[in-house]
């Protein structure tokens, strides 16, 4: 089987970005992508789609996880790899089971690993990865 990574047309900086973030794994089977079906994963192990941003102070990783509670989500940071995962969510009242998912993202160099934070709001998880002081752009005045 041949796997081809799909590059989204609206990401002009994708190539630059790939040097920063190793996206880990192939890009098939991600829910939230164009094949937009949360329940589609027959493998039982899907990868959630992610958006990645940066600003002056932080990197941001965003995931859409509708219906998940914060207790359902496992976030782990180990050896500069951020792993988000969730196991089966089963509701008894109407026999609902949801596929597990996992996704790992290599955290770029120069992130303050101790002050990484995450917020889940309205089904959107935002992980904030603060840049270390040395990585922030600095104005240098010419003498």
């Amino acid at each position, binding site marked *: 089987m041949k796997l081809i990574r799909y590059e989204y047309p609206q990401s002009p900086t994708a190539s630059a970005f790939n040097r920063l973030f190793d996206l880990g794994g192939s890009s098939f089977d991600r829910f939230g992508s164009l094949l937009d079906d949360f329940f589609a994963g027959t493998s039982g192990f899907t990868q959630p789609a992610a958006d990645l941003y*940066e600003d002056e102070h932080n990197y941001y990783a965003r995931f859409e996880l509708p219906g998940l509670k914060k207790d359902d989500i496992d976030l782990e940071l180990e050896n500069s790899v951020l792993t988000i995962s969730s196991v089966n969510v089963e509701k008894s009242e*109407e026999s609902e089971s949801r596929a597990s998912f996992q996704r790992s993202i290599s955290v770029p160099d120069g992130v303050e690993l101790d002050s990484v934070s995450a917020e889940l709001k309205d089904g959107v998880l935002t992980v904030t990865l603060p840049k270390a002081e040395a990585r922030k752009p600095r104005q240098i005045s010419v003498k």
Partner: protein
Amino acid sequence: MSNTELQTSGSTETAAAKNAQARAWRRPVYDVSENENAFNVRVHLPGVNREGVDISIEEETLRIVGTRAAATPEAWRPLRRELPDGDYRLELRLNVAVNDAKIKAKVEDGVLDLVLPKADEVKPRKIKVS
């Protein structure tokens, strides 16, 4: 079974196309289940809170519009985008009579749960998210 199914309106795509320039629409993932008394519609609207959901019924069309609570801050430079943009819109054609006085809607964690009790009559009505 065949006459008690909720059908997706075929006009969703064309209506979305008309508005495409003004506003980007995204068709949400949804799921319909049925029990003895009601249809349960579950729509995934990540990023949308209670205030952002607008539900209306006009004749046979159930229309759900979800507007995101917060836009991505402008200072954020995208490094990689995988998630589709835009707000949500879904139109479902109700070919079953629904008791629209007793429709219940709940939004939690980016998921809208709608309960449409089965009934005999159908009339236009606006439903507020409770």
